[in-house]
């Protein structure tokens, strides 16, 4: 492969490109990187190099666009429009030349040039490792038995990532390392997919693992054994060191809760349980998590994972872990079988300590932060732009900036941090295990979902998430409510004669009145329909009698008298109001009163006994009216009729209002009666209870 492409490149381009070994290896690495899905030789599945890995790779070289264009012209335009190995190699050579400052010419690449440097995506690792290039490069390539296993497990998912890293690493490697790098290529090549760029910024540990894994196979033949031992120890450090950083601050680790996520979870916890130190009960949590609309078995599994102490309630860290798992699941990550270490309550418990831990790491890693951070940020932005976010459309956050600082530095400062890593070995091992389990997540999900998980964190995301949760609540609160235990049915209220709800329904009132009458109550007379008739003046008593007759027809006769009396009484009341102003009108009314008074008197007394308030009120006006009657008698009808017609309407309205008032007053009295009776019953029961209760209190 090395020789072939190199020769082909030279021959194909019509030049005798002297490719050094390192160049050959590098180029073949890059070539294999770029042409992973199309091993037949095209550098990209699509002929257009710009949109594919080749284009990305070229852009990663950080050359100006026109330079890249020139390069593509020089090397590829001659061909049939795709980047075959020859064109690719020529292009790489030209890129190297351009980066060295030489003009982009075919002639310039004839000379020995340093390897092209690709900055962004793939090469952040180069940058990181730039400080200790050779050592690191060698380290990466060292086979490590422990890591092999992990890398094997993760080979399916992670090799994609690995392959991107391997090429970048190679240039940084010293010549002895390059063969190993090269060796790595075929292995990584086999796994490659288009994810390579996306997976670029995966932790150093991945690289280390993969490199070791890959190195293992071919590398043994390539290395001198003496270096191997040294490298193995160093790589062990590398991998081990990278582990904690991976697990602790790895931005793509879906099982790590970032600060923004944590704040969001804490706010949600507060919404359920204001005291942060106490527990959320199972049912409350169930209702809450049901809003996420995940299937119940999955929610059950989430609970199983997160409720570590199995007490049926969630503490704050447990809640954060559960929420995080649900978020991850919603973003497509399958649920792990074991709770990731980063979600353990012990890990999450010192919520305030977590940033401190990061700070500590940051302090230790402060030196190489800047460069690596920049590259990481760049990578991340690239990733974000490239990665699809099916669930969220919001821009992805660089929430890892703070946390990821550790990551890039991890490799560089490996030798320095050996002490730290040794301390954290146990965590690392756990992290290894966890990361391996997490790596079982389907590859397709991982890169995009890393970021999609991140997106949840973003403020805009949180803002949307909060309304999302509200939207959950709008729909699934009802479900939750249904699911939740329904409060026991309140004891059936005694309805019976409680007519408050329908108090203004006159028909009901009448019916109630009739019923009340039957039950022995003596409610105040409603006398509503006859009333308007009563208001008429001329034919008043006629109408009154008619109304009375009507009333009789509709009511029990016993009631009728009451009604008429009520009508008259109520009429008297409004009429009393009007007495000073409408003497004419009142006169016929008074006539009626006179007429009705004698028969109503005995009934009125009955009312008095029961509805004292109403009757008293009504009696007084009647008495006053009667007193005024003789004075009014001389004036009469002739003038009244015209004005009465005018005022009839007003009076009817007033009477209706009065009727309504009377109805309500009657209801009030009825209810008061009932209340009195209930009180009496209660007192009776209490006395009975006291009698029955044994006197044991001493």
């Amino acid at each position, binding site marked *: 492969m090395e020789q072939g492409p190199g020769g082909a490149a030279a021959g194909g381009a019509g030049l005798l490109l002297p490719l050094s070994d390192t160049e050959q290896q590098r180029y073949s690495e890059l070539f294999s990187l770029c042409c992973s899905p199309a091993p037949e030789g095209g550098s990209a599945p699509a002929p257009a190099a710009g949109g594919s890995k080749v284009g990305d790779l070229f852009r990663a070289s950080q050359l100006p666009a026109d330079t890249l264009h020139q390069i593509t012209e020089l090397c590829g335009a001659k061909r049939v429009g795709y980047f075959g190995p020859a064109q690719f190699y020529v292009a790489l050579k030209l890129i190297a030349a351009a980066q060295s400052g030489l003009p982009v010419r075919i002639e310039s690449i004839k000379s020995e040039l340093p390897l092209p440097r690709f900055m962004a995506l793939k090469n952040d690792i180069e940058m990181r490792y730039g400080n200790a290039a050779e050592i690191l490069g060698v380290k990466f390539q060292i086979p490590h038995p422990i890591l092999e296993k992990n890398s094997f497990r993760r080979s399916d998912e992670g090799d994609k990532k690995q392959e991107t890293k391997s090429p970048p690493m190679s240039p940084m490697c010293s010549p002895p390392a390059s063969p190993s790098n090269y060796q790595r290529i075929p292995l990584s090549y086999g796994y490659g997919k288009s994810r390579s760029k996306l997976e670029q910024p995966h932790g150093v540990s991945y690289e280390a693992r993969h490199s070791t894994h890959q190195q293992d196979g071919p590398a043994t033949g390539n290395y001198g054994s003496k270096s191997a031992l040294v490298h193995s120890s160093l790589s062990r450090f590398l991998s081990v060191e990278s582990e904690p950083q991976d697990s602790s601050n790895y931005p793509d680790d879906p099982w790590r809760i970032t600060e923004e996520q944590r704040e969001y979870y804490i706010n949600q916890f507060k919404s359920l349980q204001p005291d942060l130190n106490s527990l959320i009960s*199972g*049912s409350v*949590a*169930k209702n809450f*998590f049901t809003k996420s609309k995940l299937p*119940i*078995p999955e*929610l*059950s*599994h989430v*609970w*199983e994972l997160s*409720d570590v102490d*199995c*007490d*049926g309630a969630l503490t704050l860290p447990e809640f954060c872990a559960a929420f995080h798992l649900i978020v991850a699941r919603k973003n497509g990550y399958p649920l792990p*079988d074991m709770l990731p270490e980063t979600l353990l309550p012990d890990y999450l418990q010192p919520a305030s300590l977590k940033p401190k831990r990061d700070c500590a790491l940051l302090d230790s890693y402060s030196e190489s932060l800047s460069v690596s951070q920049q590259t990481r940020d760049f990578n991340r932005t690239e990733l974000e732009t490239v990665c699809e976010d099916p669930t969220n459309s919001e821009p992805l956050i660089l929430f890892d900036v703070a946390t990821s600082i550790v990551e890039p530095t991890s490799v560089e400062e490996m030798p320095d941090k050996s002490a730290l890593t040794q301390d954290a070995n146990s965590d690392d091992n756990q992290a290894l295990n966890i990361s391996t389990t997490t790596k079982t997540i389907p590859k397709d999900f991982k890169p995009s979902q890393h970021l999609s998980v991140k997106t949840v964190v973003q403020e805009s995301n949180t803002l949307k998430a909060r309304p999302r949760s509200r939207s959950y609540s709008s729909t699934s609160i009802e479900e939750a409510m249904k699911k939740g235990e329904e409060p026991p049915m309140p004891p059936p209220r005694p309805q019976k004669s409680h007519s408050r709800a329908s108090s203004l329904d006159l028909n009901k009132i009448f019916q109630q009145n009739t019923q009340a009458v039957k039950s022995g109550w003596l409610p105040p007379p409603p006398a509503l329909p006859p009333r308007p008739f009563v208001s008429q003046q001329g034919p008043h008593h006629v109408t009154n009698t008619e109304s009375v007759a009507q009333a009789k027809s509709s009511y029990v006769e016993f009631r009728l008298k009451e009604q008429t009396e009520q009508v008259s009484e109520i009429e008297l009341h409004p009429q009393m109001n009007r007495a000073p102003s409408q003497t004419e009108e009142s006169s016929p009314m008074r006539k009626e009163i006179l007429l009705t008074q004698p028969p109503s008197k005995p009934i009125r007394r009955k009312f008095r006994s029961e509805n004292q308030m109403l009757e008293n009120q009504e009696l007084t006006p009647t008495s006053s009216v009667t007193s005024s009657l003789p004075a009014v008698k001389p004036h009469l009808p002739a003038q009244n009729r015209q004005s009465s017609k005018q005022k009839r309407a007003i009076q009817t309205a007033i009477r209706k209002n009065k009727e309504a008032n009377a109805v309500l007053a009657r209801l009030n009295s009825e209810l008061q009666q009932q209340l009195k009776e209930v009180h009496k019953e209660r007192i009776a029961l209490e006395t009975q209870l006291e009698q029955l209760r044994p006197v044991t209190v001493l």
Partner: protein
Amino acid sequence: MAVCVAVIAKENYPLYIRSIPTENELKFHYTVHTSLDVVDEKISAMGKALVDQRELYLGLLYPTEDYKVYGYVTNSKVKFVMVVDSSNTALRDNEIRSMFRKLHNSYTDVMCNPFYNPGDCIHSRAFDNMVTSMMMQVC
């Protein structure tokens, strides 16, 4: 150690039943079913007075040629039935008790899950893992 582990609900329907080897599953299902009669007999034999003191571990329900059946009942009348291979003579009563205790603890954890409705089949992975750990020892 166990060849078959079953969790039977109060109404005598299985909440969880798992056996290895899997080819004779039906036989184990039948065995568990018939053992329920013995369980009920033992429970009733305790009498009302002993309800509070009734021991949860019922002991050997009945032995057969190939295997022995042990029973355990909780206070909520949920029964655990375990079938062990007769050839495994090293199994002591205490070990069986400890296995039942583990089962009971795992079952309690399943119950604590608010998403689990009592009466549903048990699909908890933790429970499965625990049962597997108990049964894997046979192999």
